[in-house]
């Protein structure tokens, strides 16, 4: 079975440009998370989707960051007017939020470099 996939795996962009990062969760997983991880550091929570509930956006660092998810499928994380401090690996994870193992399954991440 397919795991969580993310695209692109690497993205280099110029400062000021907008970027979209994509996450395909495991089919049937109701919960989806986005995290940011700077080099050598821990996971910084960005946003959490659970089913049809309103997303928890408490981790988004600024209004340049937004994310969408349609139902229980694909999610996109958009960063507008990118800044150099946005350079990081962006990880997506999904889980069966209501029943099951509660384990989070992570994608391989998108490495974003802002030049």
């Amino acid at each position, binding site marked *: 079975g397919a795991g969580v996939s993310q695209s692109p795996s690497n993205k280099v962009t110029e400062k000021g440009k907008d970027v979209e990062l994509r996450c395909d969760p495991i089919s049937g997983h109701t*919960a989806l998370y986005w995290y940011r*991880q700077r080099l*050598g550091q821990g996971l910084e*929570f960005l946003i959490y989707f659970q089913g049809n509930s309103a997303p928890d956006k408490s981790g988004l660092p600024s209004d340049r960051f937004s994310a969408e998810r349609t139902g229980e499928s694909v999610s996109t994380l958009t960063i507008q007017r990118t800044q150099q401090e946005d350079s990081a690996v962006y990880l997506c*994870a999904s889980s069966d939020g209501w029943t099951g193992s509660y384990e*989070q399954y992570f994608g*391989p*991440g998108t490495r974003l470099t802002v030049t």
Partner: protein
Amino acid sequence: AQTVTQSQPEMSVQEAETVTLSCTYDTSENNYYLFWYKQPPSRQMILVIRQEAYKQQNATENRFSVNFQKAAKSFSLKISDSQLGDTAMYFCAFWEYGNKLVFGAGTILRVKS
């Protein structure tokens, strides 16, 4: 809000020896789950071990075991017979029903030959 604290930013261990990584958490709930995740240099996050709070028995997975002290809100990870492939960053995480998973800051573990 739930918090997870990993007080050891970095640890080192000699190959074949045993190392324990610490984790404490704060919650007022009685039912929850605790996890240890491993992130090797490849950056792929891998679940190492899981503990349900209602279970008194400590979880074990081969060379990995936990010491779960519910009253003390402590959840340490013991790695026995350490191997070079265990070199990674390790994250402790807490989850309760209906809420998001909360991670600690991580501990970098280096296994030396």
